[in-house]
C-alpha cells in the first residue's frame, strides 16, 4: 500500500507540474520572421542541422541494434543446430 502510494504520489507531482506549466499560446498564427524583434530571432541552421543529424543518428543506432540482435539469435541457432547434429 505504501509502495503503491509512493509511486502514485511521485507521478502525481510530476504530472501536476506539467499541467501547471501550461503556457498561454504564444501567438495566434505565423508571424513573418522580419516582424519579430531581433532578440526573438534564432538562427535556423543549427536547428535544421540538429534535426536531420538526430534523425540520421537515431535511425543508424536502431538499425545497428536490430542487426546485432538478429546476429546474436542466428549465431545461437547455428550453435544449437551444430550441437544437436553431433
Amino acid at each position: 500500500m505504501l509502495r503503491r502510494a509512493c509511486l502514485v504520489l511521485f507521478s502525481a507531482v510530476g504530472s501536476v507540474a506539467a499541467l501547471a506549466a501550461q503556457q498561454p499560446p504564444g501567438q495566434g498564427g505565423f508571424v513573418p520572421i522580419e516582424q519579430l524583434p531581433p532578440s526573438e530571432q534564432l538562427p535556423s541552421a543549427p536547428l535544421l542541422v540538429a534535426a536531420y543529424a538526430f534523425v540520421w543518428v537515431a535511425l543508424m543506432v536502431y538499425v545497428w541494434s536490430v542487426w546485432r540482435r538478429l546476429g546474436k539469435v542466428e549465431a545461437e541457432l547455428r550453435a544449437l543446430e551444430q550441437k544437436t547434429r553431433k
Partner: protein
Amino acid sequence: MTKRYFVPLLVVTAAMFAYAPILIANAPYESTMGLVQKIFYFHVPSWFAMFTAVFICGIQSAIYLFRGRAASDRVAAAAGELAVVFGLLGLVTGPLWGRKSWGVWWQWDARLTIALLLELTFIAYLLVRKYGGPGSEKLAAAVGIFGMANVPFLYMSVNIWRTIHPPTSVVPTLPAGMPGPFWFSVAAFMLLLTILMTLRVRQEHQRAALDELYLALEE
C-alpha cells in the same frame, strides 16, 4: 518472399535517403518560416511512418488476440518497436522546428499532447512485453489495440480545436515545388519502415524458432 526483395529494397531506400537532401535543398523556401521549415520533409513523414506502424501493431494485435496467430504477435511486436522509434523522431524534430517558428520548445496543445501520449502508450507496450512476465503478449496486444483506437482522436484534434500546430489541410495545399520532395520523403520513410519491419520480424521469428528448439531439446 522477403529474402528476394530485401536487398533491392535496401538499395532503393539507401539511394532515396541519399538523394533526399538534394531534393529538399532545392525545394522552395516557405515564406514565413524560412529555412527551418525544411524540417517538415522529415518531420511529417516520420509521423506518417509512426501512424502506419501503430495501425499495423493494432491490427496484428487484434488478430493475435482473436485468432491466436503467433506470427501476428511477432509482427505486432516489431511494429510496436518501430512506432516508438519513428515517434521519437517526430517528437524530436517537432520541437526543433517549433523552437524557431513558435518561439517555444513545447506547447500543450491538442496534437502535441496526444502525439506524446501515443508515444507513451507504445513505450508502455514495449515495457509490458519486456517486463510483464508470462502471458504478457496478450496484455501487450490489448495495449496495442487501445493505442490504435486513440489515433482518430489525435487526427481530428487539430481540426476540431484551434491550436498552434499547422492543421491537416497543409499537406493537400502545399505550394508548388514542395509536394515533390515531400512525397519523395514519405516514400523513403515508408520503404525504411518496410525494411526495418522485415528485419525485426525476421529477428522475432528466429527467436521463436530458437525457443522452440530449446524446448524440443529438453524433451
